[in-house]
């Protein structure tokens, strides 16, 4: 009896059973590792009341690619957990920001390292931890802190998710993943934190055994579904950024 294959024929099939109200983490940082094709399929599917976890909601640059901001614009998002609810330059405006300012969508603003560590904690079975980050700031107001060896720390909780969307460079049929350079970013953490990890893969999927076991970035036990990104224009690929959106 052969085990069920992890390879899905297309993006729509890979996320057809994601219900309304799901918590979805989106990999990627400034381009590399961002699951553009999965996000586009989720836009088409129209799944509602999502909680989206990512570093940013996107949309600050041209060409604009499928992003969480578009899911918000499409009325699919209840809440976003991210490290930017506004752009770093006050003169830029993220598409997301106006929905947040108007109260149409909730947001939880989390320092980037705390976001990464909360995801890692969720995957690693650590329910809560202390961090020095954000102590003494508005983000710590009214929250539990603790002095350890003379320094004040903030209590932070794990951030588990239902689904992770990530983009990898290569995968094998066992679900083992390799990322190339800055692609890695949040992707391994999200794969570990999620019950269901769906991966868009750039290169043709290799047979199990093709990877050196020492050079696997995410073990296949954390990966449930794989889809190879088709060639452009059908598949979406990372593009060079040209300018900032205004």
């Amino acid at each position, binding site marked *: 009896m052969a085990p069920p294959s992890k390879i899905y024929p297309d993006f729509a099939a890979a996320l057809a059973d994601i219900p309304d109200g799901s918590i979805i983490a989106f990999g990627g940082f400034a*381009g590399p590792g961002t699951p553009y094709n999965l996000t586009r399929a989720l836009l088409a599917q129209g799944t509602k009341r999502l909680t989206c976890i990512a570093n940013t909601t996107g949309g600050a640059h041209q060409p604009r690619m499928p992003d969480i901001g578009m899911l918000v614009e499409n009325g699919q998002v209840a809440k976003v957990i991210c490290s930017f609810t506004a752009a770093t330059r006050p003169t830029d405006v993220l598409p997301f920001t106006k929905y947040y300012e108007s109260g149409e969508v909730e947001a939880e603003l989390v*320092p980037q390292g705390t976001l990464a560590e909360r995801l890692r904690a969720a995957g690693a079975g650590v329910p809560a931890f202390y961090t020095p980050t954000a102590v003494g700031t508005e983000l710590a107001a009214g929250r539990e802190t603790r002095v350890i060896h003379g320094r004040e720390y903030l209590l932070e909780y794990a951030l588990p998710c239902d689904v992770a969307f990530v983009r990898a460079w290569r995968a094998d049929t066992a679900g083992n993943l390799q990322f190339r350079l800055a692609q890695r970013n949040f992707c391994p953490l999200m794969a570990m934190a999620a019950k269901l990890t769906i991966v868009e893969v750039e290169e043709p999927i290799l047979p199990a055994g093709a990877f050196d076991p020492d050079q696997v970035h995410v073990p296949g036990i954390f990966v449930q579904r794989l889809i190879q990104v088709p060639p452009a224009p059908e598949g979406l690929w990372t593009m060079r950024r040209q300018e900032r959106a205004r």
Partner: protein
Amino acid sequence: MSELGWTRQQMADRLAQEFEEGWIVNLGVGIPTLCSNTDIGGKQITYHAENGVIGYGPVLPAGEEDLHLVNAGGQNVSLLPGAAIVHHADSFGIIRGGHIDVTVMGAYEVAASGDFANWKVGGAKGGGIGGAMDLAACAKRVYIILEHTTRKGEPRLVPHCALPVTARGVVTLVATNLGLFAPSGDAFEVHELAPGISFEHAAKLTGAPLKHG
């Protein structure tokens, strides 16, 4: 000489001279990224970006970029020999664990107390924190590069931050177009003035008391 002082690249160049042999340096978005273009002689500096890129070099010209490789500002950078990639939790483990010798960031305001603000503008509901709070709280040193005043001419070096702070009491060195300054509790000490900038001129454009260093 003009009373504008240093250009953006000159501010970055001057601050980069403070980096010491073997330091691990994190450069924030904006003017700080210009530091990696600076020639600092034979010193070996390892540039670290929040996305887990350790050991990057100058930004690559159009056509030579690797689209899988960006720094924290999304610029397509090069890698130097000895580079290594880690994931985001390990990258912030490096930051939070105190392994960054200096982080150089932009800011809206720096206070004489060493507080600074760079994530939220007045009246906004949202903000852009990114890795700034982790870096500010955990790097061994926090250096700030910013224009000495706002476009309206209001001082950015102030007695107390009016905007929500990123971290408290952490800034030890500030480069502006007017020179190099160090927060010293209730004042800023002048370490160096840009060519053509007088102490009196700098003092006039500084919100907190200015002292000779």
